[in-house]
């Protein structure tokens, strides 16, 4: 097989299509969510909506998640807390501070930034992959999780796992020739980009909306969750 041609396709036209589907799909989802239940609030508020919003973000996204003993998730299920945490942290660091990924952002945005040395991003990549395996096993053996996991959930895992593994193998030149590894990585990334808007992976955007909605509700009812 001519991996050079496949790579050119995966980096060129296929990436363009995937990127456009990603953007178009996310906008579509966003509009759907906004128009889903936009009703005028006729009820007088008991407390400040803004305070609720801020508290919700502090607890759900910014500070609390990083203090293990505050979260019941940790005391109740440390495996998920640690594996999930390291997975998200690793993914974020690799995508933003990995040199090749920063160059992608640079080509799209027009500016670049500092990147981490390869051994460090490499460590995070290994940890992320390990965490994903742990999370998969957990999903398998936990009866409740297994019950609520449909094909889409397994597919989510696979489509995130493939770019991770192909990227790791590519960096270490474990698949030869290099353009084969590169092409496989790009094909996996393109598939993920197309899948994201229509799957739960879109929580990387919608999580913040749901946090905001919940926070406003908390604030309005003057409760401290």
């Amino acid at each position, binding site marked *: 097989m001519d991996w050079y041609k496949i790579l050119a396709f995966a980096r060129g036209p296929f990436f363009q299509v995937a990127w*456009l589907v990603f953007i178009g799909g996310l906008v579509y989802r966003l509009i759907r969510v906004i128009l889903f239940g936009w009703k005028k609030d006729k009820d007088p508020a008991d407390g400040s909506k803004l305070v609720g919003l801020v508290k919700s973000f502090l607890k759900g996204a910014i500070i609390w998640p990083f203090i293990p003993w505050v979260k019941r998730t940790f005391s109740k299920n440390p495996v998920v807390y640690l594996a999930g945490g390291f997975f998200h942290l690793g993914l974020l660091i690799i995508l933003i501070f990995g040199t090749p990924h920063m160059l992608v952002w640079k080509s799209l945005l027009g500016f670049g930034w500092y990147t981490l040395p390869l051994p460090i991003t490499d460590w995070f990549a290994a940890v992320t992959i390990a965490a994903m395996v742990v999370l998969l096993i957990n999903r398998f053996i936990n009866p409740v999780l297994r019950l609520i996991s449909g094909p889409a959930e397994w597919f989510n895992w696979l489509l995130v796992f493939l770019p991770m593994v192909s990227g790791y193998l590519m960096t270490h030149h474990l698949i030869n020739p290099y353009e084969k590894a590169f092409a496989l990585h790009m094909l996996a990334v393109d598939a993920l980009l197309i899948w994201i808007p229509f799957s739960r992976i879109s929580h990387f955007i919608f999580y913040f909306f749901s946090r905001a909605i919940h926070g406003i509700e908390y604030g309005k009812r003057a409760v401290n969750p």
Partner: protein
Amino acid sequence: MSEETIYEHMRKEGVSRRDFMKLCGLLAGAMGLGNMPPLAASNLSADLNKKGATLVQRVAHALQTKPRIPVIWLEFQDCAGCSEALTRSQSPTLIDLVMNTLSIEYQETLSAAAGFQTEENKQAVMEKYKGQYVLVVEGSIPTGDNGAYCTVGGRAAVDILQEAAAGAAAIIATGNCAAFGGLPKAKPNPTSAKGVWEIITDKPVVNIPGCPAIPEVFTGTVAQFVVFGSLPALDQHNRPLTFYGNTIHERCLRRPFYEAGKFAGSFDDEGARNGYCLYKLGCKGPTTYNSCAVIKWDAGLSFPVQSGHPCLGCSEPNFWDGGGFYQGQSAPLDRPMATAVGTAAAAGAVAGAAIASASHIQKKNADKKLAKEEK
């Protein structure tokens, strides 16, 4: 050209036996014979495969017994850079072998004769040595508008190539243009330029891509044909594996910096002065197969990456369209157009709004119906 052997010709030209043997050693090295699979398995003639003969002896034997090989060198949409690189190469004996010993019968840049004279001579050579001569092509071949974009002596390049290829024993495409279309084939490819192997499909074409092709790689390939009478083993892009078996990245002297994550961020920062890896500056080394990092240029003095410039990937197909030269290799080939992104977003918004309002109307109707039924 006469029927004298290569050795006889060289002796006549004043080359001593000692220098001849040196050349044979050089040739064996240039062909990378030391790295080749067992010679016995490479279907050579029996006399070349005698037990106990050293590589140099094998090469010497071949040159002593084989007649000189006529070469026809065609130039189409090119800059003559490959010819220039060859004539300025720092391996004089090797180049001498190709330029003088091989009997180049037709070369537009180098020949003293011009016009009808040299065209007639070419016709005569093609007639006389039908099936024996080596055809070297430099430059891409335009196929648009009946080949009108490149003509020699009033004839289209495609015709000239097909005519010369018909009687050639071997075809070598030197430089990226002849091999893969090169610069003339870059988007939007106004002349519909093509590489030789896209046009000549009934004969094996050896591609020696590069911009220009490394002279030692070219001569090494020609030497292989002279000595063994066969073409070297080729990769999927018809490049000799001996020279195109490894990427620049694999043999790069800056590779340790890549592994350590130490990069030059611009051409004039601390990293650049320290000789760090040029990946961030757009180096295409990881996917570029060539011998630059090993053979280098100017008698092994340096090569682009060593001199502080990222690899452009000039030995790969379509390297002009393979992403910006100074853009990281991981970056997508094209930046998505703002209009395309806007259209995609707008399409998403319209679809979202349409489906939302459709379900809104559906819900309203259902509510009305429910209210009616309740009454």
